[in-house]
């Protein structure tokens, strides 16, 4: 379980209990009057750093803000012994008929990228770069990016060279709420705006590029409909309610928190058109990764029920062990008790479903990001 990171929220047990109760209602009542799947407005722009290959900045309504810069460098590929062995086998085979198809397959196989071609670094103010928080964030973001194995193929130039991508993710503000979705969305936008110089050389020659930047190509070409980098969304639950885009106060009473990474499945030709009923093409979403996150609510101070409070005529427990064991069994309305135990499997399934469903949250987010004008 990924560690929680937000600073401690300064709410009293009574306030926490109130918040929890209102979020448990059906429909839940959120402090800022949003519906459970509604996102806060955000400000996004791309290509803000002229020196990078792609960059983006997103600013959430609560004041958290992130910048992502992406730099691509040409790097020599390590010779892979496997590939050359394969090739030798193919050359020995003197069946000429389907040599061409085999070569195509070969190329397709060789076009496989390696995960080490992407390097991600996350910087969060107040944290050292080897603290668990930035390391986990980077791990989760790259996990989502590399999950489908198709991303690094975009970095393949030829058998001898590839692009190495450096993603520098920088949180500008204090990590008020859990910054993962912010960083993920910003990275997504930055990747969308990333352009690499157009290749002029052929085959396995030393790569030679067009020196006209305007001729450079997008890493995610516009022509490839609906293939987009993944996004990671934060979903929390209170009772049976599933709440998206939680604020830090809401996180303080979350019973479980999930980080759900969603990507788009590359569409098979022709298949996509069949079930288009509206004019808009339908996204074929798929789940890339799910991580549970240690909700900060576990660290909140518990409320003291009247029965254990001497001031209200109760009897205080003799030791802390006694106190906690007594509280285990007590379920009193209006007294805050930090959530215990994991999330229910059914609930997790429901949460994932809510993300992936057609017309669901992921689709909305992706549509919203698509609308951001590039550079």
């Amino acid at each position, binding site marked *: 379980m990924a560690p929680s990171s937000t600073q401690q929220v300064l709410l009293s047990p009574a306030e926490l209990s109130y918040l929890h109760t209102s979020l448990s209602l059906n429909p839940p009542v959120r402090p800022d009057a949003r519906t459970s799947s509604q996102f806060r407005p955000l400000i996004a722009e791309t290509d803000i750093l002229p020196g990078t290959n792609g960059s983006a900045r997103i600013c959430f309504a609560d004041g958290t803000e992130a910048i992502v810069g992406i730099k691509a460098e040409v790097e020599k590929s390590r010779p892979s012994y496997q590939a050359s062995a394969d090739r030798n086998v193919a050359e020995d085979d003197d069946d000429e008929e389907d040599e061409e198809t085999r070569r195509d397959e070969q190329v397709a196989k060789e076009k496989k990228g390696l995960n080490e071609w992407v390097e991600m670094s996350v910087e969060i103010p107040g944290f050292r770069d080897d603290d668990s928080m930035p390391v986990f964030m980077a791990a989760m973001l790259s996990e989502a990016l590399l999950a489908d194995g198709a991303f690094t193929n975009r970095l393949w130039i030829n058998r001898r060279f590839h692009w190495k991508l450096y993603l520098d993710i920088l949180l500008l503000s204090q990590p008020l709420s859990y910054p993962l979705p912010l960083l993920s969305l910003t990275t997504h936008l930055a990747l969308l705006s990333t352009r690499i110089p157009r290749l002029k050389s052929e085959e396995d020659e030393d790569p030679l*590029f067009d020196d006209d*930047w305007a001729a450079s190509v997008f890493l995610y070409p516009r022509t490839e409909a609906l293939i987009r980098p993944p996004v990671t969304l934060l979903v929390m639950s209170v009772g049976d309610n599933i709440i998206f885009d939680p604020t830090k106060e809401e996180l303080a009473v979350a019973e479980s928190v999930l980080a759900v990474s969603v990507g788009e499945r590359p569409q098979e030709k022709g298949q996509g058109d069949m079930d288009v009923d509206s004019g808009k093409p339908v996204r074929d979403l798929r789940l890339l990764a799910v991580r549970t996150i240690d909700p900060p609510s576990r660290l909140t101070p518990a409320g003291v029920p009247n029965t254990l409070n001497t001031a209200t005529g109760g009897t205080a427990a003799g030791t802390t062990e006694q106190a906690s064991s007594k509280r285990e069994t007590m379920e009193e309305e209006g007294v805050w008790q930090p959530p215990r135990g994991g999330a229910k499997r059914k609930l997790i399934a429901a949460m994932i479903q809510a993300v992936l469903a057609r017309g669901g949250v992921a689709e909305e987010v992706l549509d*919203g990001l698509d609308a951001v004008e590039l550079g």
Partner: protein
Amino acid sequence: MTSLKRSLASDPYASNISSKVYVRSTKSGKVQKIVREVYLRQDIPCSSKLCSACLKTAPRDASGILPPFVLSDTPAGTKEFPQGHYLVPDTNALLNAMDLFEHNSAFYDVIILQTVLEELRNRSLPLYNRLIGLTKSEDKRFYVFFNDFRLETYVTREVGESINDRNDRAVRKAVHWYSEHLTQSVKATGQRKINPAIVMLSDDKDNLSKAKADGISASSLEKYVAGLENSDQLLDMISVAKENRETKDANAKAAENLYQEYFSVSKMMTGVKNGTLHQGIFNVSPYNYLEGSVHVPAFDKSLLVLGRENINRSVQGDVVVIEILPKDQWKEPSTKIIEEDTLNKNENPDAEDGEQVVTERERRALQEEVKKVHSKGTEGRAQPTARVVGVVKRNWRQYVGHIDESSVSQAAKQSRKQQMVFLIPMDKRIPKIRVRTRQAGEIIGKRVLVTIDSWDRDSRYPVGHFVRSLGDLETKGAETEALLLEYDVQYRPFPKAVLDCLPKEGHNWIVPPSMEDPGWVNRRDLRGLQICSIDPIGCQDIDDALHARPLPNGNFEVGVHIADVSHFVKPNNAMDAEASIRGTTVYLVDKRIDMLPMLLGTDLCSLKPYVERYAFSAIWEITPDAEIVNSEFTKSVIKSREAFSYQDAQKRVDDASQQDELTTAMRTLLMLSKKFKQKRMDAGALSLSSPEVRVETESETSDPIDVKTKEHLDTMSLVEEFMLLANCSVAAKIYDAFPQTAMLRRHGAPPKTNFEELANQLKVKRNLELKTDSSKALADSLDACVDPQEPFFNTLVRIMATRCMMSAEYFCSGTQAYPEFRHYGLASEIYTHFTSPIRRYADLVAHRQLAAAIDYEQLDASVRSKGKLEAVCKNINVRHRNAQQAGRASIEYYVGQALKGRIVEEEGFVMKVFSNGFVVFVPRFGIESLIRLRDLADIEPESTFDAENYILKTSGSREVEVELFEKVVVRISDVVEEGTGKRKVKLELVKTGSK
């Protein structure tokens, strides 16, 4: 979810700042996106003398001086623009017609836009350099307007717009701005009613039509030129590269690609890096135009490139990438002379269709070669061959030649119709060039200058355009200029900036009489010494003078005094820059092209007799056995007592009655020089030989009257020995002071393979052995190469040995290891050139370094930087070689002229034997020439060639047997060579052997 985007427009400075984005690929393989901010300004002047507004705002330099405005206030008008006009060419116009812009009759007041200049630099560096030269010349009035830095003319690239379109738009915008700006400023002054038109010159139809839509006056090059006087001549100077492109589209089907396509740049680079392809400079054999060779670093011996298809459109001097051919296609270098004009006569330059790269006859000629190699079955001698797969850099220059008369149709001679003709370059290694001209009738029989524009895959010969005519064939002026152009000698008069660097006093300059003068600081007064100079007759630029006097201890004091040129030519001024470009003075038979302006070369620096001059002196104490006791260097003031010619000096020394101080000093010097020479020879110095003749000319008309071989006098070696001594001591001194940056001269030991052929020839023909282990061994074995019956044989062998050597070169000491400094020919460990600063730039650099080494002055930064020195060395090495070749070519021409109309029979020697001809060297005139088998008789005789024994036997129409080193008698007459239009001596075999 909503998203917002902040707009950049809120930035108040946004209008002044723009940026340029591009991709840079570094040598190490990095690919970077580069963003450069552009700060736009409003004070960049239009530089027209009509404009007063710009005069106020134009930026001034640090001392508050405004650079003068360039464009004239009364520009020339044409029919179309009677009010006068400024020209604004776009990049294509410059690419296609740079020669036009350099022409003197038109093209004044030209605005060169920064956009255009930068584009030109990317497209063609040589053209860019020529344009920069034009912008510097004051009389052409070319002004570079930085339109991309001026707010009003800056153009941002629009989405989806190509760079070219953006640049074209920038040009149009600048033209628009100029015309509005000038209208306004002319109105403001109110003096004149008409203001000049701003005319855009472009060859791009799209650009022209857009200009029309924008309401800008624009014109295509051809239309504009057609409106000028002498338009016929000017029209020929427009490059045909573009024209061709248009016509090609029309008959694209018909055009067949004759040559293989070049590899892409990246493919070549990858190949060169991998070692599968090789890069080198393409050289054509002077005897066989279908055989080229490329020396690549990977192999000791050059790779052969045989046949037109393999040569694949490369021209002598191009940097090419080659691919080695499979072993079964390896061949021997040819033993046959193949000349283009003999094989491909009567071709039609206009023929586009049915053209073949390799004509039948060419194919047959090559076929025979192959057969021979196969028949021999000696695979050991076959050399690796290669084919050209791409050209990295074209080294095309302007070529001098003449029009092939047979390619001009008779009807067209009179008319002004444009037609294709062949130009035959003077340099045999350059292929024929197809030139389109309207003045075919006029330029027949003239020396003309052309440039190559392009060589497409579907054309057998390169296409070029006419630049200018130098004059009639065989007139002195035209031929001399042709020589200078061919050898790239700078012969334009010195520009004003250079002349401004001369001392103000001019010829009245004298050594300051007062010893208090700063010129005397650290200068020794040697006016009392008995100094004299010894030079060839008529020498005006006297570099060196000598003195010798006995010392009380029985030793001698000997001084070599060199003209102190570095006093007059200060580093980094215009004169220094010009001298470093010229590199050396070029001596032709009738002309001298100076490195330094006349005033310095023949007067102020020249160590003339009876006047005081500044000098740089090297003074030694030498024992009577020619051992050097000590040496010192100093700047000095001398007064030469007499300027002798070699002959006068010799007479005086020989005349026992002369006992004056000067003569005895010369005798001392002569005595010492003989000892020095002996020492040098013992150390293994080579005495080499090259054919040297002198052309005697009539003093008035400088028409050649006679040719004489140079006689050798003792006084010549007297001077030579002491110059060598001075050079060696200076070299040691400056190397000691500046181990990294000393300007030195080296002569590499020739690789053994160079002598293989000659050694084999001597072995087979004369049973002599040529040892080449060291210079000493070589010198000894050369001494042994004597034929008692034939005194000239030894000289002949020496001449041939000289041709096997490497050429000496200047270098900067930091670039070589000490053992590599050796001068092979002089057998000296270290050597430099110090003694002729008037005529060689290297000596001038050595002077500066020596002056710094003796703490006379500070060493200038330019002679301290290794990189700069290397560039200087590279240039002067080339210039030096060119100057030598130009000099030789000039002698060759004059020998031809001297023999004009005469028929002489002379003795000659066979130097080289081919399977269909042989080369004869005639020592009397220092000429060598080829005698082809077909010249022997009317019907070409049958021949058998014994390559092992170097014997060529003919039978049939004439029976002779010619072998290497054989003495023959030839009849020398003069003919105008069909191929090059040169008047050349023609040799005819009279008889073989002296028997």
